[in-house]
């Protein structure tokens, strides 16, 4: 019990550090004392504007998106009993990106603001459903189906690029797809948050059934687990939260893969116990990564999605090698 509590304190401490760093760093260096004063006496000043209108929504969105990716990764890994599962691998992120791109570039987002998250969610649901239907019949099938669906969504994205109404749009879509949290505002946060929270609720409801599923699908059913319900909850939860998150930030990969693996050594392998820590560490990882994008001195800000992919791919390799060693 003591050990289980320790990760929680460690996680909370790390999250606080990450948040402070995220509020304190940026392309413009602001004296922490001035920043602090601007919180105490909120009056229009450079520090207050940057803090309240740029860094705060950015940080909060980072926490929401990171937690979403961590949580959905943990649920998918539990549901599919596959350590490689994550929203990106199952085509969900690509589906969400496709939906969001369609909403942004074909004028839907301009006519009503909810279009981007809704289309993101729609794309995510479509991709996830397709993966789950095609990939029925084992873990390997699911991974292959995920690859196929990702390919399909990528093709859709290419098509959207091809037919983008604005010649400049091709460049913009490509850049948007790299994923970033910079220059986000409260409206975007307010649009995404309800869907993300609803998604979390669905994902959290799967916790107990995921534990039973570790015994295998047949055994879980004999224990009274309604498999259809679990799959539906996981699917809807992932689609809603990842869809809305991707619509707000663009594609950010690997957090969903890494976070659950990072916490398992500390909290054990019982799926329900992995969910909350995964969400927490997903948020920590994402906010730290976002801080890194601002600290790394490049003339153009390195995009968040690029950084998480660069850092996450070696981990993926390590995971594959470890699986190879463990498999008979």
């Amino acid at each position, binding site marked *: 019990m003591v050990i289980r509590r320790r990760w929680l304190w460690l996680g909370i401490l790390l999250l606080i550090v990450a948040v402070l760093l995220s509020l304190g760093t940026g392309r*413009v260096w602001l004296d922490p004392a001035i920043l602090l004063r601007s919180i105490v006496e909120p009056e229009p000043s*450079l520090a207050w504007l940057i803090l309240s*209108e*740029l860094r705060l929504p950015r940080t909060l969105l980072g926490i929401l998106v990171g937690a979403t990716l961590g949580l959905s990764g943990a649920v998918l890994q539990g549901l599919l009993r596959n350590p490689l599962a994550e929203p990106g691998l199952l085509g969900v992120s690509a589906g969400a990106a496709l939906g969001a791109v369609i909403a*942004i*570039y074909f*004028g839907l987002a301009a006519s009503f603001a909810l279009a981007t998250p809704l289309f993101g969610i729609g794309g995510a649901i479509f991709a996830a459903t397709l993966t789950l239907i095609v990939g029925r019949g084992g873990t390997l099938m699911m991974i292959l189906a995920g690859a196929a669906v990702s390919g399909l969504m990528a093709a859709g994205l290419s098509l959207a690029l091809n037919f983008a109404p604005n010649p400049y749009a091709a460049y913009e879509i490509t*850049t948007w797809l790299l994923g970033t949290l910079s*220059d986000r*505002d409260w409206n975007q946060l307010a649009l995404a948050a309800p869907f993300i929270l609803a998604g979390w609720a669905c994902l959290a409801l799967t916790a107990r059934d995921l534990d039973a599923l570790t015994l295998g699908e047949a055994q879980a059913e004999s224990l009274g687990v309604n498999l259809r319900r679990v799959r539906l909850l996981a699917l809807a939860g992932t689609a809603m939260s990842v869809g809305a998150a991707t619509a707000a930030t663009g594609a950010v990969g690997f957090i969903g893969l890494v976070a659950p693996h990072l916490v398992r050594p500390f909290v054990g392998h019982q799926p329900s116990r992995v969910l909350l820590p995964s969400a927490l560490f997903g948020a920590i990882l994402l906010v730290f990564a976002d801080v890194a994008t601002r600290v790394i001195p490049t003339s153009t800000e390195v995009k968040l999605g690029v950084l998480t992919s660069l850092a996450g791919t070696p981990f993926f390799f390590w995971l594959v090698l470890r699986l190879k060693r463990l498999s008979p």
Partner: protein
Amino acid sequence: MRIRRLANGLAVTFLALGLAAAPASAATLAKAKPGRIMSTNMCNDLLLLMLVPKERISSITYLAHDAVAMLMPGADTGVRINHGTAEEVVRERPDLILASPWSTPALRRLGAKVGAPVAEIDAANSFADIRRITRQIGALVGEPARAEALIAGMDRTLAELAATHPRRTVRVVAWSGPGSVPGKGTLTDEIIRIAGGENIAAKYDDGRYSSFGMEELLRARPDALMHGEDRYDGPSLRDSAVAHPVMRKAFAGRQISYPASLYTCGLPQSASAARDLRAALGKLPAGGVTW
């Protein structure tokens, strides 16, 4: 035209290539005026429409329509459009192709095959460039007098602007999103200077176009933000960046929109853009930005 801004970087790379390829000899062309001129670059389209009657134009690019509608409404009615591809060269059999240094190599090769001289017109980054390019195209299409008249009109406007001085220097930046902000050595920079403004992006010497995040923009505290407008009013992410609440709040009443085509394409009318900008700068509220 936005794509053009992007292509400017590439243009520098290809400039050497463009200079190396011998442009069609102006002297020989002036004798027999070309009657089926094909333009494969939006900025050339606009100059071409000003210089020759429509009957002598074979086609202009599909990108030109919005800018034409803004600068000279109706001037392109009935003119065929092209997409800058080599196949269209074969279809149209033009007798002169106005290309840009970054036109496709296949187009250049095919142009040579169908016997159409391919003239590579580079991008204008100053009013001196505008004079040179307008003269160059004028000579190529056999309308040097028309070109000189356009230049004279431009120079008159510039002289009027130089004769008077605005009361104060306004610090501005052409910011349409954090992507590429025109700095030193761009036409936008010169227009701002002639209008009596100070381009705050000009002090960064990391190339002609720099990136400017919102935090940096707030710190730099310009007196006004300028953003390019074209007729294209479809949605884009840059527009949403300009609409960010902090931008609207911090620069309320201090946003100036300008015709993007006159800033990115060097045209004789770019001088009137500078005149309009001076008028807009004069209307800004006195004092710096307060928040």
